[in-house]
């Protein structure tokens, strides 16, 4: 096997994993800490992408657009939490699913009305649109490296926030025992609103990162949300660290499957059968992994402690 191709594919897998992490981190926080199933998480991912697309054209700067779109999606998250989500915490999961599924329809139709059905491509500035040769033979688009860097910085910031700040301590305490934290005088309502907004902003950031590659599209978040759920189940619901590692594992497995599975299958199958089986099998790989994890370790790889 060509090692340069292998390194390139590992980087591609990392980049996909990082994107999944940005999406899954918010999901796992909301699900794990607030015990709330948010199917509309993908809609916030889509909103981030659309805000960024519009602002990029308006301001003629992708980076500035991202800087403004993150607080915008944060704000959308807060509004959604106050208007809808807040009233559902005490209800059961089925109500969460119904209400947030409704939200998906509202978001998708609103985007259709405001921006139209056509996708919105986001032009990148010159210095991000090129490629670099990291090692001899390993040429990768600069923008994909930026995604990896952004994800790592965000992951670091999240780790610091959750583990080393007062706010993070409260979030962790809220996850362990919501009622006790409330009894001790912490305003748990505002705390949850903040957490939800934070998750929204991270989902939005993921949307902004992917849109220059695939365009901002209606329903883009619904497609990837399923994979994000796979990530948080593998990582252990409520664990940001678990989400990070699981996202990288899922990203790598998915990419490696697409990259090398047909070659592997061709060794012991006819070429024609391998060509049919490889895409089907590589699309299933992450679900097979999830099923195995659920069987051997139902709580996930890194379940949060004290639960």
């Amino acid at each position: 096997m060509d090692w340069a191709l292998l390194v390139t594919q590992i980087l591609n897998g990392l980049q996909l994993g990082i994107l999944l992490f940005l999406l899954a981190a918010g999901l796992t926080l909301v699900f794990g800490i607030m015990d709330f199933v948010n199917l509309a998480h993908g809609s916030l991912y889509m909103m981030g992408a659309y805000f960024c697309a519009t602002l990029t054209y308006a301001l003629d700067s992708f980076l500035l657009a991202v800087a403004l779109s993150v607080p915008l999606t944060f704000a959308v998250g807060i509004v959604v939490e106050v208007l809808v989500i807040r009233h559902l915490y005490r209800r059961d999961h089925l109500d969460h699913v119904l209400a947030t599924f409704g939200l998906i329809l509202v978001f998708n139709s609103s985007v259709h009305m405001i921006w139209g059905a056509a996708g919105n491509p986001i032009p990148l500035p010159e210095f991000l649109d090129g490629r670099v040769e990291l090692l001899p033979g390993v040429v990768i688009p600069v923008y994909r490296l930026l995604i990896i860097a952004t994800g790592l910085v965000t992951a670091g910031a999240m780790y610091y926030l959750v583990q080393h700040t007062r706010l993070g301590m409260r979030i962790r305490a809220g996850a362990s025992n919501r009622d006790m934290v409330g009894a001790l005088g912490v305003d748990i309502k505002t705390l949850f609103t903040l957490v939800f907004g934070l998750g929204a902003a991270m989902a939005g950031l993921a949307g902004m990162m992917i849109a220059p590659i695939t365009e901002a599209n209606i329903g883009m978040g619904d497609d990837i949300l399923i994979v994000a759920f796979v990530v948080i189940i593998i990582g252990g619901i409520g664990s940001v660290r678990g989400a990070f590692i699981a996202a990288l594992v899922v990203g790598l497995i998915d990419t490696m499957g697409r990259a090398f599975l047909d070659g592997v299958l061709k060794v012991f199958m006819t070429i024609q059968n391998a060509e049919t089986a490889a895409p089907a099998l590589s699309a299933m790989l992450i679900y097979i992994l999830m099923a195995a994890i659920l069987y051997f370790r139902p709580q996930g790889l890194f379940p949060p402690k004290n639960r």
Partner: protein
Amino acid sequence: MYKHAMWLLSVLALAVSPALAAEKVKIGFVTTLTTPAAVIGNDMKDAFDLAYEHIGGKMAGLDVEIIYEDDGFKPDIGKQKTDKLVKQDDVHFVTGYIWSHVLLASRKSALDAGKFLISANAGPSQLAGKLCHKNFFNISWQNDQTPMALGEVLNQRGVKSLYIMSPNYAAGKNMVAGVERTFKGAIKGKDMTKWGKDAQLDFSAELAKAKASGADAIFVFYPGKAGGAFVKQYMQAGLNKSMPLYSVYTVDALSLPKFQKAGMKGVLGSLMTQFWSPDMDTPQSKKFVSGFLKKYGRYPSFYAAQSYDAMFFIKSAVEGVNGNLGNMDGMRAAMEKVDFPSVRGKFSMGSNHFPIQNFYLREAAADSAGRWTTKIVSTVFKMHQDVYAKDCKF
């Protein structure tokens, strides 16, 4: 007294109106009007509406009623909507259909109800061959034909090796089979990517493989939103410098304005094959393109051109029987004759009810007003028939 008379009159009018309604030509149009693929559906609908205007809303003196239905990009919904059209609305013709898998799922509903089914886009191999039906017509092309023309172009241009990428569904497989049938060089690699509602849009792994394969050129089929995503990543990966792009149904009037808006100049000059192009020199095409540009302010896509043709095709059937909509055999015979002005000029119907027509090489280029569109470079196939016609027995 006067009031009573009015009341009586209106009751009479109500009683008479169902009889009048039966004298309408009802056309059901199934396409995708939600999801990002609505861009295609809207383009088809716009063209069909324009055609309705151009025929003055009448066929053989009868009023025409169009009922649009949204398949939501899903075969099961498309089938439900087809059922609704043939059973509840009792339409005479069902047309539209962007997607091969939606058409294949809906086929039985329309044909078992004894209606004419006319595909304005999808041309799956099954319906051209073993599953062909006397009441099914295709007014676009058989899926394999356009890529077969492209394979021929590759041979002519001396391309020795090729990398292939396509979505993994009915039409995607036909496209790949088509190009493989005519291309004489080596296939260095092939990727069939996930398709459907959660289609794969990040092609980093596949593009890295394509680059490592060292093929002379790359062939892709990515309709709709995937096309934009693919072209962007192809250029971000820098492959446009080493591996020229040959595509079918990927770079079109729907994606080019977006590429222009985003300043993606690398797409200009990329080559594709097609049965028609907006710059085509036929009277009907000129009327259609100028009418479309005037009404909607943009170039029509090939999807739109086929939908526009579908209206005139149906009109030729209704006029062939002087508006006697009960005469199915007469309408079928009229459609088999292909006696209508088509945007593509002259063509004929094969024994399997798929067109026998020319295919052209097109290039993405700017028009005189600076708008990005496609222009015909040369004719690749003259009066080409699909390869499945021999398997078709009514």
